[in-house]
């Protein structure tokens, strides 16, 4: 890195700040993949907001720093590299920008401040049972009744809905329009009558995913963002916003550091795995893959800076990022397998004194492997991303 590279200067400023300000009790939970409370997330969000960086990617007029996409990407990845919890994007990266871009002044005044200070926790109500990667197929209906919409339907895979106050929701307001035209973007108060939330126990025995049932829920028309029937456009705006920064290089770096720890700790016949030539080669292969993903991101951000929008070709970042995280997690499980796998949930709760087995962080790494299957499923499965690339980029 050349001296005076502004990105590098920014990265090291973020790194130094994070080292000093990420609370140790939160970082430790992340590194061991122990259960985090809502309070942990909110505490860390507020520390970032005090510094002015939580919404650094927002325009200055809405309280942000007007960061470029590459800056936001550097910021998030530096935090993740050090063991920051997930910067739950629902408020600050998803609905916030939709509101300040497409909402009216009253909506901006009402929703932006509590979104930023996290006195409102947002959930995202997109997927349905029959509409996963094929979102245009959604069935939840909103029928106008005076100055309300009456919403009935069923949303699924709603992350952290158990903590949420509000859900930004895609609903069908017009059955006769083309599937994508009849969709609107509605903010639903989850404390309203007719809303019920049911946790989904996931493969890693976590319960952060939920089903949200909406039974004739009355939603004031002021909760419609932008125009009726244009919800699909807003959701796509949000996706386009996200695609470039979806590559999780920072997390990959944290996970490969953990792999190194496992290889040094787990012994095979008394010798650490780190001394095995096949493990050394596998480790290097993974570290080259990280270099590959980081280089790809850098290259795309340079294109963007030069005024060429990489557009849909950024889908490849989501594919590559998912495959990289899954490959490192697979290596975790293969290394841990030598010492014997356990999935003891007492080790996954901070403060529990259950006697863990194998190297510290082992059960958490196994949980990450299991839950990490989702990276190639959510937000448009990798198969769908490949179809996008084939059509939009390779022109097939």
């Amino acid at each position, binding site marked *: 890195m050349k001296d005076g590279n502004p990105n590098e200067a920014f990265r090291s400023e973020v790194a130094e700040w994070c080292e000093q300000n990420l609370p140790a009790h939160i970082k430790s939970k992340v590194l061991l993949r122990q259960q985090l409370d809502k309070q942990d997330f909110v505490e860390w969000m507020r520390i970032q907001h005090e510094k002015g960086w939580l919404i650094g990617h927002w325009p200055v007029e809405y309280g942000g720093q007007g960061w470029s996409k590459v800056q936001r990407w550097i910021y998030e990845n530096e935090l993740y590299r050090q063991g920051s919890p997930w910067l739950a994007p629902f408020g600050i990266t998803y609905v916030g920008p939709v509101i300040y871009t497409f909402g009216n002044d009253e909506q901006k005044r009402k929703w932006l401040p509590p979104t930023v200070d996290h006195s409102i926790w947002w959930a995202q109500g997109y997927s349905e049972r*029959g509409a*996963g990667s094929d979102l245009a197929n959604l069935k939840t209906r909103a029928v106008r009744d005076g100055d309300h919409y009456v919403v009935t339907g069923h949303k699924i895979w709603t992350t952290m809905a158990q903590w949420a106050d509000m859900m930004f929701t895609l609903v069908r307001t017009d059955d006769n329009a083309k599937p994508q035209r009849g969709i609107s973007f509605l903010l639903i108060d989850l404390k309203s009558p007719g809303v019920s939330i049911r946790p989904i*126990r996931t493969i890693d025995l976590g319960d952060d*995913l939920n089903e949200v049932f909406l039974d004739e829920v009355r939603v004031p028309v002021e909760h419609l963002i932008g125009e009726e029937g244009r919800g699909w456009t807003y959701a796509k705006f949000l996706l386009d916003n996200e695609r470039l920064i979806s590559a999780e290089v920072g997390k990959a770096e944290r996970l490969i550091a953990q792999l190194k720890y496992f290889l040094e700790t787990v012994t095979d016949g008394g010798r650490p*795995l780190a001394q095995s030539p096949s493990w050394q080669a596998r480790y290097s292969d993974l570290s080259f893959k990280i270099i590959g993903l980081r280089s790809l991101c850098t290259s795309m951000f340079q294109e963007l800076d030069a005024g060429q929008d990489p557009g849909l070709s950024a889908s490849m970042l989501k594919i590559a990022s998912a495959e990289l995280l899954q490959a490192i997690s697979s290596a975790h499980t293969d290394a*841990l397998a030598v010492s014997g796998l356990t*999935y003891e949930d007492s080790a996954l709760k901070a403060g529990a004194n259950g006697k863990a087995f194998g190297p510290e962080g082992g059960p958490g790494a*196994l949980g990450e492997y299991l839950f990490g*299957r989702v990276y190639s499923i959510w937000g448009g499965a990798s198969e769908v991303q490949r179809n996008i690339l084939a059509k939009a980029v390779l022109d097939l």
Partner: protein
Amino acid sequence: MSSTMEFTQEDRQLIQQQVERFFEAEYDMEKCRADIISCPQQAWQNAAEAGILALGQSPDVGGLGGGTCDWGMAMRQIGSTLSALPLLDSAILPARLIDVVVSGARREELLGTICVGTARFAWAHREKRSGNDRQFVESRFDGKAISGTKIYVIDLGNVSDFLVTARDDSGALCLLLVKPDTAGLTSHSYRLPDNRLAGELVFDQVEGELLATGCDQAIEQVLDLAAACAAAESVGAAERLLALTIDYVKTRRQFGQALGDFQVIQHRLVDGYIGLRTTRAIIDQALAALDNREAIAAQLCSAAKAQADKACRVVGETSIQLHGGIGMTDECAAGHYLKRILTNNSRFGTADWHLSRATKESFNEAA
């Protein structure tokens, strides 16, 4: 070594049908979703009454005859139904080990108790630092008592006797029989990825019955068999999971068509099928070679385990991917099958270890 009694094709089919019926009758995905799955004593007795525990054992001790391929067939059924019956750890491995290293009346007596289910042994060999190394045993036997720690003892709460390996003062590998309530023996259990229980056993001057000394070669043979049996269990699990996934993609519709109509999805399933069919063929070869005491048996067992670990894991991960969001839930069977496969990955030699074992043989390196 059990004397092999030749079965006709018809006998074999009959036995297989009986074994299938037994495990299918017990099959219940709801059980897999419990926090812990274990095998109560009654289920062990039921297996004995159905003849499952007498499979592969010689008629002179009350066994059904046959050979290791019967064990492979039963292990596939266990994988297919995600049964918690510890057939491998509590019957197959103890039976083979006792058969090889114990002789005379004691051999007949011990093997007989396995066939009828009155004994439920557990194999306590692996240690904290041993990893894949089969001969790395730090537990000591001073001529009177054992001291050391063993891990990965499956379902240890229901065991009648532990079969424990330890080294004596001359460094020879000994096999001992220890009752769970013997003074100085403590244990605690933890959950495996597939919700079965395993435990750590801590021996502090624990007395036991010395069954044999100089068991190094026997341990090699038994662990080759164990690797092939674990491979068979994983293949049974992956075959069932592949079938469930094929059913799912026929019914799940996205973008106006069944998922199974997309060629990219068909190809992934076909690759899974080829991988499993090949693995099963290697396992059959490996088990037959064990029965016939062919020199190539060890290499085939390594090939079977390495291939099974990889092919079954691919099928497990692919199945979750093709189930989409629903594949991420505890409710879906896919995750439970992947977890059984994952657990087996960590037992009786990882794929990487079996590969490097073969590498050493190919290039004449000292192990």
